[in-house]
């Protein structure tokens, strides 16, 4: 198995497309999305009970190399600063098909 970095990003659903663009620019081999997650943070409670994604969160996870990770984190930071959210990095191993 290959040593990799696992990057997880949680932010407002509306910013999801922007996050995916950043991931693609960093050249990751893929990512996985969980939509309409909720939570609490500095910007208050997020409840998924309005018929809009404007006020829910999106979760994206991507397995990438350490180099890609650095690029990713640098590019994601201003988005999080502006719209809120978190970016979590951890070590992992993986096999892809």
């Amino acid at each position, binding site marked *: 198995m290959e040593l990799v970095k696992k990057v997880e990003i949680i932010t*407002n659903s*509306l910013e999801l497309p922007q996050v995916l663009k950043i991931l693609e620019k960093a050249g990751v081999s893929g990512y996985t999305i969980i939509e*309409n997650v909720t939570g609490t943070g500095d*910007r*208050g*409670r997020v*409840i*998924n*009970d*309005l*018929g*809009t*994604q*404007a*006020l829910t969160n999106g979760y994206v996870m991507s397995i990438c190399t350490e180099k890609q990770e650095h690029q990713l984190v640098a590019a994601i930071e*201003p988005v999080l600063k*502006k*719209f*809120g959210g978190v970016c979590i990095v951890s070590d992992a191993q993986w096999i892809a098909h």
Partner: protein
Amino acid sequence: MNSSLILSNILNPPVLFFFLGMLAIFVKSDLEIPAPLPKLFSLYLLLAIGFKGGYELEESGINPQIVLTLLAAVFMASLVPVYSFFILKIKLDAYNAAAIAATYGSISAVTFITAQSFLKVLNINSDGYMVAALALMESPAIVVGIVLVRIFGKSKEKESEKSEFSWSEVLREAFLNGSVFLLVGSVLIGILTGAKGWEKLQPFTQGIFYGTLSFFLLDMGMVAARRIKDLSKTGSFLIAFSIFMPVANAIFGIIIAKIIGISQGNALLFAVLCASASYIAVPAAMRMTVPEANPSLYVSMALALTFPFNIIVGIPLYMNIIKIMGL
């Protein structure tokens, strides 16, 4: 105030289901209408009133009165956020003031639909073209709100970031957001297919309409009540704003309605459009374009105060004012 009007409003099943929804949260029942079911109801309601409005418009045709009403609608939708902004600026920064102003300049479709259902109980006519007014009043406030931020917001951003701002995205968000798009699209389809189309879809768009509205208001009652605790952080200035501003806007709207001489039913719908605040399209647009503003402020004001106020008290109150003013 005419107590029979209040009663007519309250003894309307959709309004009672709204109460029931609020009660569910207050007594902590575990009743739940999980996402995305409420979305189904709201999409349905937009499609149904749009289609019906389009069909009626096709039947009645266009006349100068209609054009005048629609112009008045755009006028109010653009003016309300401007004066609201300067009132709000007394206590708030430009970001929050603009976001709240945009919220109150725009409209709530379900408040409009509830007013239609109230008119039906009273057997007062209203016209299909008011749906076009509804559609026209959703977007301008978003643009006005963003213009206000651009002018009055002391941007904390660096110049480089500022350049990222794209008007095309903002205008798309304003004029092509899901609810405006579906509403306008359904109006057009209603116009194009006329009586033949109406006949085919009528059991769907009319038959089950009040039941679905009841179901949706049950949910909206829960949604509104859930946000009531957030009001504690809002402060009395904004709480007062959420009640008095709608009434002022409604009165303003009724005066205009009297000037341009529209019928009682249409005047009520116009007043309700002026009085109502958006809790879906505008928050989504503001979250993206004015991230500095606090969503829990504008969402909870519109949803936990103005919306229930209009549904329960506002609609009969505005009708009363209309009667007093002799429209």
